[in-house]
């Protein structure tokens, strides 16, 4: 198996087989499109948090940040440590608006907030972003496998996409999230393992810190140079444009947050992921580059390799047979966990925002579920076809940066203005989306347009600074159009913005009460599938009246909400044992709960 020994090859093969079978085993949980895209909205915060980590860290992350870590040291962590600025607006702005309006995608929000035209324009821009993102992940994974296994980038990407398709089309979001958990643990373990082996080789933490080249302990690169990795470029591209694009606009992230069992769990997941898991992820993806630079400075590791190869060179140098297979499996885990999310997300946009509005037929759950699976296949194939395109486009970091900077600012600006400003009109949204995107592409032809926003970065670095230009120009277009045009009164428009939260609070949930109870099967004619029968004792403990919602979940946390039921409370007409809730036998069977 190319440069890999038999033991490493066996580990990689075991990972491929294991993760595919594990993911496919959740097929029975996808009974509707809501299950396929939102995993039944029953996931706990810990599962969503790990899934966020796994989705954030793609295979390109290991290549890109190990390369940056090798060249610039700890400054490679800047991207992972600057997302918190958006959290007040995300956690208490966009996220509650999305929960409350019940939308599944940004284009769907735009359709309801404005009209069909804006929804379609948003779907087109979002698809560009998503399919391009899938292509970038497949491209970097293909390059990594090419270097390690000696197989071509395209055949390698083809095999991985085929395996992702097996489980993603089977269980949808449930498969994605549960495999993400395993993959998140693996990528953290793989990255941290390489770092730990390197530190040990250098004689411990003291030896590692001493061996680092001068300036490698700084958390930021120089302000505006070199053009391909400078502070201000990363700040505008990753923290500002990338941050809002990733948390607000990225369909994969939106579906992940909406898959949480409640708004509060979604917020908890985001907080844990950003405050704890992503800083750990920054260490995991950069660590190989840090120790690579230190080992080279000590003369232990021969230099002369390309920075983009730092992760693979260092991993090969430090890992014994078997361990290298584990590290490579971590790299593959990072790729697959991002690709599966993006494929699921792209399917949601294709089916709900393009196919359904165009076909205009009445909802048919079986047909829609089949369309969702076909949509996933289409998304995967489109991403795959982009691999040869990216192969001819500079370094990985530049390719990723140029793409994010060119496509996302208009969408990000339009969304933020839409949920913050009731006076932001459909015409203004359309001008922001289409005009902003056109001006972004115009700046590729006329780079001088970026120079007023360049902060002293030379034209070679405009790929990053284009984000600053894009945000400014899109915001100016949107605000000017909204102010110039006469605002057509839209009934209840405030309800679709963040200001609609003032009346009802930010949550659909009432006060939360947790009660430990036993489940009892009741006759089908006593309770419907969505009804939980309670006796007077529980009614008192819950402090709820008839008709209120309850979430009945298995107490064993490792089921991750899979064994659960969302019900409305009803008073039992027949006596129930104390501390018990009555559920329809079908609900009991579906969750494999035993009576009592």
């Amino acid at each position: 198996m190319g440069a890999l020994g038999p033991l490493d090859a066996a580990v990689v093969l075991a990972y491929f087989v294991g993760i595919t079978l594990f993911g496919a085993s959740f097929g029975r949980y996808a009974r509707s499109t809501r299950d396929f895209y939102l995993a039944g909205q029953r996931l706990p915060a810990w599962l969503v948090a790990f899934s966020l980590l796994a989705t954030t860290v793609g295979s390109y992350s290991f290549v890109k940040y190990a390369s940056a870590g090798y060249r610039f040291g700890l400054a490679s962590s800047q991207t992972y440590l600057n997302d918190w600025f958006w959290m007040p607006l995300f956690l208490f702005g966009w996220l509650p608006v999305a929960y409350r309006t019940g939308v599944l995608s940004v284009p769907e929000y735009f359709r309801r907030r404005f009209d069909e035209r804006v929804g379609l324009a948003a779907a087109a821009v979002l698809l560009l972003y998503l399919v391009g993102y899938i292509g970038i992940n497949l491209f970097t994974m293909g390059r990594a496998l090419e270097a390690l296994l000696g197989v071509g980038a395209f055949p390698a990407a083809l095999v991985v996409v085929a395996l992702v398709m097996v489980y993603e089309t089977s269980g949808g979001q449930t498969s994605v999230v549960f495999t993400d958990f395993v993959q998140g643990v693996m990528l953290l373990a793989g990255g941290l393992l390489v770092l730990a082996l390197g530190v040990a080789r250098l004689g411990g933490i003291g030896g590692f810190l001493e061996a680092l080249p001068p300036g490698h302990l700084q958390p930021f690169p120089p302000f505006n140079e070199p053009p391909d990795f400078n502070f201000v470029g990363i700040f505008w591209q990753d923290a500002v444009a990338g941050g809002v694009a990733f948390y607000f606009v990225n369909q994969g992230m939106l579906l992940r947050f909406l898959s949480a069992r409640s708004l509060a769990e979604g917020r908890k997941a985001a907080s844990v992921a950003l405050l704890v898991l992503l800083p750990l992820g920054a260490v995991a993806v950069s660590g190989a580059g840090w120790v690579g630079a230190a080992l080279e400075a000590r003369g232990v590791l021969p230099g002369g390799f390309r920075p983009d190869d730092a992760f693979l060179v260092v991993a090969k140098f430090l890992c014994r047979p078997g361990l290298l297979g584990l590290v490579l499996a971590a790299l593959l885990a990072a790729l697959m966990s991002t690709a599966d999310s993006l494929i699921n997300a792209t399917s949601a946009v294709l089916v709900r925002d393009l196919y359904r509005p165009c076909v205009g037929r009445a909802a048919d759950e079986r047909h829609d579920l089949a369309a969702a699976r076909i949509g996933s296949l289409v998304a995967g194939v489109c991403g795959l076809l982009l691999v040869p395109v990216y192969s001819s486009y500079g370094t990985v970091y530049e390719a990723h940066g140029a793409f994010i900077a060119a496509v996302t600012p208009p969408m990000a600006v339009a969304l933020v203005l839409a949920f913050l400003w009731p006076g932001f009109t459909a015409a203004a949204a359309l001008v922001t989306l289409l005009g902003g995107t056109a001006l972004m592409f115009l700046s590729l032809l006329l780079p001088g347009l970026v120079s007023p926003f360049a902060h002293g970065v030379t034209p070679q670095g405009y790929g990053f600074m284009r984000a600053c230009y894009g945000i400014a120009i899109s915001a100016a277009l949107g605000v000017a159009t909204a102010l110039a045009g006469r605002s057509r009164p839209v009934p209840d428009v405030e309800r679709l913005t963040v200001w609609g939260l003032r009346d009802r609070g930010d949550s659909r949930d009432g006060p939360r009460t947790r009660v430990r109870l036993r489940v009892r099967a009741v006759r089908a004619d006593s309770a419907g599938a969505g009804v939980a029968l309670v006796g007077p004792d529980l009614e008192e403990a819950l402090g709820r009246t008839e008709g209120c919602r309850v979430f009945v979940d298995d107490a064993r946390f490792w089921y991750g909400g899979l064994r659960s039921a969302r019900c409305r409370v009803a008073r039992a007409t027949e006596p129930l044992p104390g501390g018990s809730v009555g559920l329809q036998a079908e609900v009991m069977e579906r969750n494999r709960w035993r009576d009592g």
Partner: protein
Amino acid sequence: MTAYLYQYLVGGLLFAAGLLVAARTGQIGLRPGAPARRLLLLVLGFLWFAALQGGLLFWGR
């Protein structure tokens, strides 16, 4: 140091704008209970990253 100040000044403006929106909609605030807890989490998160990167900046000179 310039990078640190720039990041926490410009990023701080974004952060403050988000806090303002959350406060105006009644989701965070100083009154005891959930609003105060949420405000505390947001501010502590901001300080955690500011301290982490500030510490590295000072220690890594």
